[in-house]
């Protein structure tokens, strides 16, 4: 059984990466590449609404329907509402589904409450203009009206928020309305950070937060305790006095599976925690079975965030450990782990090595705008093209990335070198292929062989443990 490769996510015009025209060849075009569909590996995968038979308007239908169970009575016609969004949603399936959900949430608030002062506040990671780029490319500035759609960054003016653990700080513009609506998605993405604990709440401690708060998360509260940062802010009287409801693009490794909305963010959080552990848990555990490979980065995102089968490269770099297992303090990669690498190696014996299955990394297309030298320092990395190397060299967060990586003239020469140096013919491509994963034939065989056993282990052994660790009873959470 051999499927053709899936068409990868297109390169994007962005100041954080090379111009799309400079991405002259995608890894999916390499000889011997094939794809494995996730529904084939895991027939219990939920059906995707997008991509599928319908265009992106299917997201509108599902958003309208999900919002029917949400109470909006607190919003008065003369009041103001901030729809709070994050960059991450725009990286999913090209961004159109998330943009459509945002438009629909806006329209439904207006239709149901008569409120017209509805704004978009879109937070970022560490690329402070990233959501400004998305706002423009999806026409959200025109859709929300002049001056109403705004990208916000953690270095913008802040406000103090009093919480149960002391003062934390939010971005002023996020909270400058009578009401806020939390518009996010359930894609798990950074499991190495959030460990699927309070995943739905996280933006309150991250993309809606000031530097002080984000630094608290990544430096003060520990690899698991950090996840309390967001809950502390969300549970504060200040945020509770403004929070109206949440709307989430419901994601699974296969794509968008629906829209979930609730006035109770914790209830929504429990639902998506279960689904995330179950579906992403299987794929991540399966990728942990890969014994050796060349990883190719080929997606419009910073190095750690390029996607394959809904899993990001940062998580593949830690796939030799169980990222969902909270009894394990430090994954192979997370910022606390990185912090605990001393001048002469790890400060603790217990720090696991970066996934030894990754024999080589070919950086065919990935952005700067996120500190990534950890990866090039520990995984032999070939960067395709001098222009891409220059992007990393000019990036204040990646001054040392190229000190550890080599430059290849083009993708073919990079792959030739990678095969010769690593001795493996297994290739995994992080290119955002929808519904499946682009791999070499040899790796496709391994994934098919291992998938059923991994599925049984996750359902029977790991999932119950993961949920117990998070205090979630699936019977109660799913009603």
């Amino acid at each position, binding site marked *: 059984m051999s499927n053709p490769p899936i068409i990868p996510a297109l390169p994007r015009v962005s100041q954080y990466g090379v111009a799309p025209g400079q991405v002259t060849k995608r890894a999916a075009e390499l000889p011997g590449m094939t794809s494995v569909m996730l529904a084939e590996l895991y027939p219990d995968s939920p059906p995707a609404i997008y991509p599928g038979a319908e265009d992106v308007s299917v997201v509108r239908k599902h958003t309208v329907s999900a919002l029917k169970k949400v109470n909006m009575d607190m919003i008065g016609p003369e009041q103001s509402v901030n729809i709070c969004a994050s960059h991450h949603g725009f990286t999913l399936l090209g961004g159109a589904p998330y943009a459509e959900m945002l438009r629909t949430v806006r329209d439904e608030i207006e239709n149901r409450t008569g409120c017209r002062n509805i704004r978009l506040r879109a937070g970022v990671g560490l690329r402070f203009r990233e959501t400004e780029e998305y706002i423009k490319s999806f026409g959200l500035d025109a859709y929300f009206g002049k001056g109403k759609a705004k990208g916000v960054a953690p270095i913008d003016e802040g406000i103090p928020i009093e919480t149960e653990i002391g003062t934390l700080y939010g971005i002023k513009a996020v909270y400058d309305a009578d009401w806020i609506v939390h518009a996010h998605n359930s894609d798990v993405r950074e499991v190495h950070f959030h460990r699927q604990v309070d995943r739905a709440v996280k933006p309150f401690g991250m993309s809606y937060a000031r*530097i002080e708060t984000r630094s608290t998360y990544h430096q*003060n509260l520990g690899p698991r305790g950090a996840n309390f940062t967001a809950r502390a802010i969300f549970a504060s009287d200040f945020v509770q006095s403004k929070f109206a409801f949440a709307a989430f693009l419901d994601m699974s490794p296969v794509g968008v599976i629906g829209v979930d909305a609730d006035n109770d963010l914790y209830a929504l959080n429990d639902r998506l925690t279960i689904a995330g552990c179950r579906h992403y848990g299987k794929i991540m555990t399966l990728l942990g079975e890969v014994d050796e490979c060349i990883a190719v980065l080929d997606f419009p995102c910073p190095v750690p965030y390029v996607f394959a089968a809904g899993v990001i490269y940062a998580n593949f770099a830690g796939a030799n450990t169980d990222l969902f297992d909270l009894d394990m303090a430090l994954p192979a990669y997370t910022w606390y782990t990185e912090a605990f690498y*001393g001048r002469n190696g790890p400060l603790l014996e217990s720090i696991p090595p970066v996934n030894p299955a990754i024999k080589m990394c070919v950086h065919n297309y990935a952005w700067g705008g996120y500190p990534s030298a950890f990866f090039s320092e520990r995984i032999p990395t070939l960067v395709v093209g001098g222009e891409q190397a220059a992007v990393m060299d000019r990036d204040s967060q990646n001054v040392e990335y190229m000190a550890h990586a080599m430059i290849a003239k083009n993708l073919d020469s990079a792959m030739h070198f990678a095969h010769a140096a690593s001795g493996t013919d297994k290739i995994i491509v992080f290119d955002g292929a929808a519904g499946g994963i682009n791999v070499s034939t040899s790796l496709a065989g391994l994934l098919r062989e291992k998938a059923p056993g991994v599925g049984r282990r996750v359902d029977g052994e790991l999932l119950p443990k993961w949920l117990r660790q998070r205090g979630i009873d699936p019977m109660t959470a799913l009603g």
Partner: protein
Amino acid sequence: MKTITLKARINSARCIGCGNCAKMCPTLAIFMKGKKAVVDEGRCLACANCHQRCPVEAVTLEKLDKPFTVRAVTRDFEREAVEAMCIKAGFNPGQILCYCTATRAEEVAAAIIQGAETPEEISFRTGLRMGCSVECIQPALRMLEAAGITPTPPEGGWQWYGRTPVLQEISQEVKSKYNHRGFYFDSDIALFAEVVKSERR
């Protein structure tokens, strides 16, 4: 430590004088002269904040003819004090505090011992916060606190507002209320203690 290869340049004709760049610059390298922003080139360490947030895109980053490196080096007679300050602040001296520049705790301690009294001065002497400028403000404040220094935020600036809680300060009441949700507070406290105690550097 950071090697600086770029510097910020402001296009005065474009600048509308909003002052945002001056409020965000972590080394206080920008000041307003009348209604225009001006970069003190001797203090710019190319974090790109001004370039990234100027509302009219009036800032460019230009290549330096002569790149240079900023770092604070511990002198032999400072070694003991450096170690003590890091440990008091809850850090292993060899651990990384700034993920963009790989600036380590011992380097920040050395900068403080050698005279840095604010996060801005630490940044200027070590390169800490000169990448994303987001994630390492708390370690800078914690290290200053361990040195007995309480800095005040730059007046009218948004560079930073205050020190926030550390794990060890979370009350038993809060821990008991939330621990069953997977926060593992006490295990992480033990992990931090182990890192601080480690003799590896």
